[in-house]
């Protein structure tokens, strides 16, 4: 039972990470209508910048600030130089231009930091684990990620639903042209939203550092999963992204944890492991396909 609970928490932690990425991606798509494949690169940039600064200065806090700064800077630069030209274009151009950006960022990072992954240890304050329920020791660091993620979700909820900027964002994702026609400085709004998304991606990347290796290609791995989250939740819906992230995070982690074991009852050990790993990787895509076939616009699409 405690093992099950631990896996669930791991799932929630993964889900929260996905949410940090999906929130930005879904906003950028919902409001600007741009498919940004380079969102994963912002995650990678945050991870590298934060991890490097934390390693050089020995301060986790400076690392966070560095990750924020680097990701936001890169995000605003991408928006200003490339994405701004893609607003009116069709999806094909957007996919290809941002695919080009991925290549550029990956190689630039390789040039600066080399091919070796960076490793970073958990900061001393957050090291160790605490007993949540009797018999379940859970790493403090992962717990912190969950808390940070939920706080960000709450903050975004307030921002989107209770502030003027949030109102414009909601209006923008429902009817872009109308907002523009009402005289809102839509370009500033676009840059803000893009920067916010980049910030969250950078945060996610930095927090992922101590759990996963910081390496080139880390962005694409999680990017595709994030797209699944965005599409399942409904493009443009933060609420949808939140529930879809948690759901898919838990399902993915659960499948990885339990499927090989279940298959071992029917297959030989190594084959069960390989097949189990394969099918668990397929799980979220299967869910996405089913969701799209039942509700082609996603689960939480407003007004549908």
């Amino acid at each position: 039972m405690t093992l099950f609970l631990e896996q669930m928490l791991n799932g929630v932690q993964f889900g929260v990470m996905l949410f940090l990425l999906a929130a930005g991606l879904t906003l950028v798509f919902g409001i600007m209508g741009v498919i940004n494949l380079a969102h994963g690169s912002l995650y990678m940039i945050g991870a590298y910048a934060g991890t490097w600064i934390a390693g050089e200065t020995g301060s986790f806090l400076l690392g966070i600030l560095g990750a924020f700064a680097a990701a936001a800077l890169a995000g605003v630069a991408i928006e200003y130089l490339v994405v701004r030209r893609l607003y009116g274009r069709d999806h094909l151009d957007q996919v290809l231009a941002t695919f080009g950006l991925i290549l550029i960022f990956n190689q630039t990072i390789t040039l600066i930091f080399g091919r070796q992954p960076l490793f970073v240890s958990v900061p001393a304050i957050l090291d160790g684990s605490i007993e949540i329920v009797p018999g379940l020791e859970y790493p403090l660091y992962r717990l912190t990620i969950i808390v940070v993620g939920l706080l960000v979700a709450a903050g975004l909820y307030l921002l989107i639903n209770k502030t003027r900027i949030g109102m414009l964002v909601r209006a923008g994702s429902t009817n872009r042209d109308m907002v523009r026609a009402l005289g809102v400085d839509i370009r500033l709004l676009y840059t803000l939203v893009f920067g916010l998304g980049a910030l969250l991606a950078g945060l996610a990347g930095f927090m992922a550092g101590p759990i996963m290796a910081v390496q080139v290609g880390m962005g694409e791995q999680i990017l595709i999963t994030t797209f699944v989250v965005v599409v399942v939740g409904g493009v443009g819906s933060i609420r949808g992204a939140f529930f879809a992230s948690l759901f898919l995070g838990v399902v993915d982690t659960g499948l990885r944890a339990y499927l090989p074991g279940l298959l071992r009852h029917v297959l030989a050990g190594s084959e069960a492991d390989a097949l189990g790993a394969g099918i668990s990787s397929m799980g979220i895509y299967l869910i996405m396909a089913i969701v799209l076939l039942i509700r082609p616009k996603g689960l939480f699409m407003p007004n549908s």
Partner: protein
Amino acid sequence: MTPQTEHSSRRLLPALAVLALLIALPYLAQATGYTAMTTLATRVLIYGIAAASLNLVLGYGGMVSFGHAAFFGIGGYTVGILYQHYTLGEPLFGFIPGTNQLLITLPAAIVVSGLFAAAIGALSLRTGGVQFIMITLAFAQMLFFLFVSLKTYGGDDGLIIRRANELPGLNMRDKQTVYYVCLAIAVLFALVLSRIIRSRFGNVLSGIRQSEKRMAAIGLPVNSYKLVAFIISGMGCGLAGALMANFLRFASPDMLHWTKSGELMVMVILGGVGTLFGPFLGAAVFIVLESLLSSWTENWQLGLGVILLFVVLYTQGGVQALLGRLRRRA
């Protein structure tokens, strides 16, 4: 850009000149001492077939599929799996005998990838826009992970095909022969594709891209047209994959990876979306760029990224349109 103007008689002469050049290419390669040119050209032809197939849905049908590497990989694996069962001497599923005959494996690859395209297309075409992009990606990813997990067929490491498939009367171990076989198939394929594009079917497909509502209003079964185009396109990619497996003597999950789908799209857009020869040109530009840049620096992808960005942002319609504009200016 319209298919009708594509193949007028004015274009026939340059096409014949290019064909003559392609036939002479292995000899030119030997004469100049740059023998790697033949294998490079073989890869260009194979990727050209795949990109031209993708272009049928992407350029003519307006369906942005981000999962066409799946069909490329299925074609490759069809060849690999049939070969493995041929060498082991045990039939596939207990009743399909393995084979190493190209005349059987190629049609098999086309049929199998066509079946997969029918299933994936029928499901995916119920969505549209960004959801279509993502659902095609999702199916390709599922197949990618399926092949990664199939230990019987090499899993992660891929499937080695010790000898290329046999074609009666030809020595398929000779690189030059393989090149000519690929050239013949590519020319045949381009002819078939040009017939399809100029047919009533092709015109309807272009019409659907321009206005799906209007085509539906005329009373045409829009979804069937899109599905048939998707299936034909999948079959073409399967054919290319089968040739690639023969050329590399290797089939691996890499063939189905989503970056491969991206590369195929890059080739289409480099050459020019919605043109018959554009994708072949795009494949040539892509492969040559890749090998040139990678011989200069191991960070060749940086250059590729910059070029890609430039092409998307500043050239409307890829290399072919760029050439056309230059020609008109001259």
